[in-house]
C-alpha cells in the first residue's frame, strides 16, 4: 500500500529523532540571490522547540529507514520489525523548500539507512542535495550525515554541496562497536573524518593567483556518540572527544543518552542512563572547548559526579589553587572558577581596569555567586574558612531529591 507523504514524513522523522545534533551554526554568512531563496547567518536559529525542550532548526529526516546494517541500538536496524518508508528525492526537496519559505526551518539535515551499499546510498543523498542546490538554487543550510563506509570520493562531492558533514562515531570504544554495530569499522569512521578535515583545509588555501577554491563543508564537521549503550566510562568518552577535536577539528561532539528503542535487542541495557549523565558530559565538553581544560584534568578516570557540575568538582579536588583573586588573577585561572562563565571573565577583565572589584560588582557581571563564593577573593570578600570547610561539597551539591512515593 502506498504511503501518503504525511505517513512517510512521520516514519522518517521519528527514525531521525535520535540524532541529537540539530545545530545550524558555524556556517558562512550567505544571502539569498535573485531567484535563489535562503541565506545562512553563521549563528543558526532554533525555529521551534518540541516538548522535550529540544530545538528544531532543520528538517531532520531520513531519506529511508530501510537499512542493511543491524546496529543493536538503532530503531531502524535491519532486524527491527518497524514500518519502513522512503522519501523520493522530489519529496525531500519540496518539504525542505516549502518549510523553509514559511520560516519554519534553517534548512535540511539529511541522514539515511543504508540501502544496497554505503556508496549507493551516499550517491542517492548527493542527488537530493544537487537538486536542492542546483535546480532550486537553495542557499539555506544543509547538514549531511556521511554514510559509514562511503568512499572518500563521495565525501568530497558531498562537502561541496553541504554546509556541514558529520560522521557518527556512535560508540566510544572499538569493543562496543564490534559488539553492537558489527558492520561499522571504527578505523573507517576516523578515516572519513580525516578526509573531511584534509579537504576542508585544502579548500581554505588560496591558489597562487589568490583565488579561493569553492568552500568545502564551511560549517565544519561534527559527530554523535551514544552514551550508556556500552560500558564505556565518562573518562573514556571525554578522552575520545578530546582526540576528535584535536585530530579532525570537529566543531561539536554530541552526546546522546541511549534511549531504549522499541523491541530492543537483548545486547543492550534495559534502562536508559539518566539524562543527567548526558548533561554532565555536555558541561565537561564545554570545559574542553572553551575553558582550557584537558580531558585528563576534567576527569582522570571513571564517571562524572552526578551531583556536581564538572568544574565545581575539579575545583574541590584542587582547593589549594583557590581562592582566586578577581582583582589580579589571569584569564586562565579566572576561567577555572566555578560560577564564572567566559562572558563573566571577559567582563571582570574589562571592569577591573576601572576599579577594585567588589562582591556586588561580580553579581552585576553575571557570576553565579553561590557557587563562586568559596573560591574567590574580592576587594570586600574573602572566603576565610569556607574553602577548607568539611561540608563544602554538600553545600555546593544540590539537595538530594526527595524519593517519590511509589
Amino acid at each position, binding site marked *: 500500500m502506498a504511503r501518503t507523504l504525511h505517513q512517510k514524513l512521520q516514519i522518517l522523522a521519528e527514525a531521525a529523532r*535520535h540524532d541529537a545534533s540539530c545545530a545550524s551554526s558555524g556556517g558562512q554568512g550567505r544571502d539569498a540571490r535573485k531567484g535563489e531563496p535562503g541565506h545562512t547567518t553563521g549563528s543558526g536559529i532554533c525555529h521551534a522547540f518540541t516538548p522535550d525542550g529540544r530545538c528544531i532548526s532543520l528538517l531532520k529526516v531520513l531519506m529511508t529507514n530501510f537499512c542493511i546494517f543491524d546496529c543493536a541500538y538503532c530503531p531502524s536496524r535491519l*532486524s527491527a520489525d518497524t514500518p519502513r518508508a522512503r522519501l523520493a528525492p522530489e519529496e525531500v526537496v519540496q518539504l525542505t523548500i516549502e518549510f523553509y519559505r514559511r520560516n519554519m526551518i534553517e534548512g535540511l539535515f539529511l541522514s539515511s539507512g543504508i540501502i544496497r551499499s554505503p556508496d549507493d546510498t551516499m550517491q542517492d543523498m548527493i542527488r537530493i542535495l544537487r537538486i536542492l542546490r542546483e535546480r532550486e538554487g537553495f542557499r539555506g543550510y544543509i547538514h549531511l550525515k556521511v554514510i559509514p563506509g562511503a568512499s572518500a570520493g563521495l565525501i568530497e562531492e558531498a562537502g561541496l554541496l553541504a554546509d556541514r558533514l558529520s560522521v557518527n562515531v556512535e560508540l566510544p570504544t572499538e569493543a562496543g562497536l564490534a559488539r553492537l554495530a558489527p558492520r561499522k569499522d571504527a578505523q573507517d569512521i576516523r578515516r572519513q573524518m580525516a578526509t573531511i578535515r584534509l579537504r576542508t583545509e585544502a579548500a581554505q588555501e588560496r591558489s597562487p593567483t589568490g583565488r579561493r577554491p569553492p568552500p568545502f563543508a564551511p560549517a565544519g564537521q561534527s559527530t554523535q556518540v551514544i552514551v550508556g549503550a556500552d560500558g564505556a566510562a565518562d573518562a573514556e568518552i571525554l578522552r575520545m572527544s578530546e582526540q576528535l577535536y584535536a585530530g579532525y577539528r570537529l566543531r561539536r561532539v554530541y552526546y546522546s543518552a541511549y534511549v531504549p528503542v522499541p523491541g530492543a535487542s537483548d545486547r543492550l541495557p534495559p534502562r536508559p542512563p539518566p539524562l543527567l549523565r548526558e548533561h554532565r558530559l555536555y558541561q565537561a565538553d564545554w570545559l574542553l572547548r572553551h575553558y582550557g581544560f584537558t580531558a585528563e584534568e576534567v576527569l582522570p578516570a571513571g564517571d562524572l559526579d552526578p551531583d556536581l557540575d564538572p568544574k565545581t568538582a575539579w575545583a574541590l579536588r584542587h582547593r589549594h589553587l583557590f581562592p582566586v583573586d578577581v582583582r589580579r588573577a589571569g584569564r586562565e585561572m579566572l576561567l577555572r572558577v566555578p560560577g564564572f562563565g567566559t562572558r563573566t571573565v571577559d567582563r571582570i577583565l574589562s571592569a577591573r581596569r576601572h576599579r577594585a572589584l567588589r562582591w556586588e560588582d561580580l553579581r552585576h557581571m553575571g557570576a553565579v555567586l553561590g557557587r563562586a563564593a568559596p573560591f574567590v577573593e574580592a576587594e570586600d570578600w574573602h572566603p576565610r574558612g569556607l574553602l577548607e570547610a568539611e561540608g563544602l561539597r554538600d553545600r555546593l551539591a544540590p539537595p538530594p531529591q526527595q524519593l517519590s512515593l511509589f
Partner: protein
Amino acid sequence: MPHVILPRIGTDRAWREAARACLAARLAPERVTWSLGEAEDLLFDDDEVPPAPRPGTVRAPAAFVELAAQAVWHRDPERFARLYGLLWRLRLHPRLMDDPADAAVAQLIRMARAVRRDIHRLHAFVRFREVGDRTAPRRRFAAWIEPQHLTLEPAAPFFARRFADMDWLIATPDLVACFEDGVLRFEEGASRPELAEDEADALWRTYFAAIFNPARVNRRRMLAEMPRRWWAQMPEAAAIPDLLRKAEAAARTMAEAPPREPPLYARALARRAEAAPPRPHPPGPASVLAGDLAACRACPLWEGATQPVPGEGPPDAPLMLVGEQPEDRDDLTGRPFAGPAGDLLLRLLAEAGIDRAQVYLTHAVKHFNYMTKGRQRLARSPGGAEIAACRPWLLRELELVRPRLIVALGATAAAALTGRAEGILRRRGGIEAGPEGLPVLLTLHPGHLLRLPDPVAAEMETEALRRDLITARRHLEGMAAGSGGDADASPSAEANAPRRAGGSAAPRGSRGRVPDPRPPQPEPGRSSPASIPPSRQGHAPSVPPRGVCGG
C-alpha cells in the same frame, strides 16, 4: 524645556540625530524630555530648537553607538532619556562603556540584550502563510506576530536577505513590514489579518509531533525557549498540549515493546550481507601489510590514531628510509612523510640526487603517538615499549623489500634498527649493523630540524642531513659499482649481498643515472662510513640476526 518627539519609523536614526543636537547645545539630561509620537518626522516641541551640529563635532564611543542602536527599540518609555543620560556622562568619562559594573551601563546593556533576544525570536518564530498563487513567478506570503519590544524594524532586513525572491508582509500591532519586488518599506501597525492555514502547516505539525521524543519530556525547557506569548501564530503550537498529554503513555509503549522476531526479509538480507566478500584493500605495495597492520593492538597507540601508516615504495627498493613515527598529516592520509617533515626530507632527497620513486619510506612506529593541546596534536616520541611492539612490522617490511642500505632517521629508528637509541648525535653519519647485518646509516630526523629555534643551527643541521643522504647514495653506488671497488664501505653489506637475487651484480643503485665512481668522501669533523671501527660494526644488534627476517 525642549521636548523631543520621535517618529515610530526610523526611531533609531531620529534619536541619534536629536541626541547629537542636544549634546552639541550642551543640554543637560534633566533639561530634555523624550517621547515616541505618531508622526514620521522628528519634532522638537519647543521653540528652543537646538541647531543640528556639524558632522564630526559630536563624538561618542563606538560601543555606545552600538548599544544605543539596540536599546532604542526597547518598550521602556524611559529608554531615550536613559541613553541620553549615559551619552552626557560619556563626555567626561569616555571609558565608562568599558565598565559593566556601572549601574546605568548595566541597565542599558540589559535592555539591549532584551531587544536582541526579541529580534532573535522574531527571526525564529515568524510563520509565513501563502497568500498568493503558488505558481506565480513571485510567490506571496504573509505573517502576524506580536513581539515584546518594537523590534520589527531592526528584524526585517533579515527576512529581506533570506526571502529575497518572494513578496512578503509581516504585520505586528505596532508596525507592518512589507517587502515587494525587492523593496522593503514600513507602515503603521495593523490589526491581526485573517490568514488561512495551508497544507504545509499540516505537514509541519506532522513533523513537529514525529521529531519529538516522548521519552525525554522537558516542558520547562520548552517554555523557557519558546514562551507562550509567541504561540499564537505558530501552527505547531496547537499540537503541544496533546503531545504532552500522551507522552508518558507513548514512552511506556516504546520501552515495553517486547523484542520481536526480525521480519523475513531481514534474515534474507543478513545472509546476503554475510556472503558478500570483504572490501578489498587499496592496491599498492602498502596493501601487503595494511590488512594485518590495521588489526594490530600490540600497544595502545592505535586507540588515538586514525590509522596505521605502512611504508611506501617499490618492493625492490635498494634504499629504505626509516623515520620515527607518522606525523599528524601521515596519520590523516595514511601515507608516510606526508607532512612538513616529509616535505623537507623529500626536498633533501632530491638535492642529494636520490630518486624518491626508488626509495622505500617508512616509520619505525606505525601509529601516531601524540598529546593534545587544545585543537592541536603534538607529536610525542614513542617509548621503548612501543618501539619494541612495532618492531615486527618493520622487520616484515625489511623482509619484503630487502634493501641494500637503510637510513635510520633519528633515535627512534636507530633504536628499532640497531637496538640502541643513545648517542645519536655522536653516531650520526656512521654505518652500523642492523637486523641480519643490513647496513644502517644513522642520521637525524628531518622533523628535529624543523623544531630547532635557531635558524643558523637549523640550516647547519639541514646541510648535515643532506650530506648524510649523499653519503647514502654514494654508498649504494659504491656497492652497485662492484664488490671490489669500495671494500671498506660496508663489510656487512657485502655479506648481505649474496642473499639477494642478482645481488651486487645488478646495477640497481644506479636508478637510471650514471653511477658516481668516486668513493664516498669523509666529511670533515664527522665520522665517515670508512672510519667506523670494525668492532663497532660488529656490535651485535639486540635482535639475533638469525630468523628475524627469514621468519
